[in-house]
């Protein structure tokens, strides 16, 4: 048994891989939700049909504005729920306060907060009998779009240069 206590071996095999697996799963879930939000968000512009993307087999739904609008809401709810889950989990764990502070200080956090805020305003605007001034609607529409662009550039930068 190569000199390692069986109990210790069991601990290493069970706990360490599980921690890695949990982190990886969370990373991919977060990435999938954000990816779907970006995709369904861009689908709100009449471009996917124009540029044949909705003609690709399996992607016809990208040309359905109501379907992508509904999915955008669904993934927005998932993003809000998941980020709240992550933030609360960190808060409840000992020694994670610094990582919360670091996350709150990061550009990613502020861009995401801006997207959720402007997106939330658009959701409220879309409810019946909600009348926002025309200039305010244009402001939140363009702010939401601009923040997505900034988010994509920032995420790409982080991905390729491994910056946090």
């Amino acid at each position, binding site marked *: 048994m190569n000199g390692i206590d069986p109990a210790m071996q069991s601990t290493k095999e069970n706990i360490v891989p599980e921690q890695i697996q949990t982190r990886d799963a969370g990373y991919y879930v977060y990435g999938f939700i954000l990816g779907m939000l970006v995709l369904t968000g861009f689908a709100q*512009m009449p471009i996917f049909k124009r540029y044949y993307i909705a003609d690709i087999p399996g992607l016809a739904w990208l040309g359905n504005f*109501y379907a992508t609008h509904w999915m955008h809401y669904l993934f927005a709810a998932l993003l809000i729920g998941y980020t*709240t889950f992550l933030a609360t*989990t960190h808060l409840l764990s000992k020694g994670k306060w610094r990582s919360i502070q670091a996350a709150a200080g990061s550009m990613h956090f502020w861009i995401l907060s801006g997207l959720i805020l402007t997106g939330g305003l658009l959701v409220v605007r879309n409810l019946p009998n909600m*009348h926002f001034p025309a200039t305010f609607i244009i402001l939140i529409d363009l702010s939401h779009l601009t923040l997505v662009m900034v988010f994509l550039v920032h995420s790409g930068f982080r991905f390729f240069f491994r910056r946090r």
Partner: protein
Amino acid sequence: MYPSRVRVEDWSEKQDVSDRLTPYNWLFIQHAVVTVNGKEVELTLPRMCMHCVNPPCVKLCPWGAAVQEENGLSRIDSDLCLGGSKCRKICPWHIPQRQTGTGLYLDILPSLAGNGVMYKCHRCYRLLEQGEVPACIEACPEQVQSIGPRDTMVRKAHEIADAIGGYIYGEHENGGTNTLYVSPIPFNILNGAIEKGEGRPHFALVKDRMADANSLAAAMLLAPVAGIAAAIGKAFRQIRG
């Protein structure tokens, strides 16, 4: 324009077309001849924007180029519209009509994005601001139209419908519209009798197209609560484990 599938819709040489909705004609008269109890009845119906209570064309315009006034009318700002025609696709009646070759898109990416300006009835909002009535009401020789607050108009529509044994269209369609029709003929029969197609809207039943997404708005409010509850549950399980 690129790519080649992008449809050019130039009505500038056909401004006189009046038997359908066009970028230049925001109201047309639809005719229906139906037989009821062996008797032939002819109806003429002014067709224009339904001015939905919760208009998808306004709420889902990606640029905020469409706006809904507090009095319920919806309109498209021709200075901002890029002519992508999303509003026409999502409109249950496909009301807005496009004029290619004009508008803001010419100053941005004229070949790659946009395709003109979408036009539809704006209920003569300038006249309404001045306390006057829309031009179509003024021009109608039969005086078939009335205008007023929606609850008043719904009440009036029911009074007329009760008096003639008629039917109402627009009270519930797409969650309710500000344009209401009262007819002595059921609208499913009228819908079969009218000419439908591009620029010629139907009279079919329409479910509330915004309802599915708006019901998810409640899920967004519950999402943080669910996230916190899940995190507390996870922490509790870890403590017990």
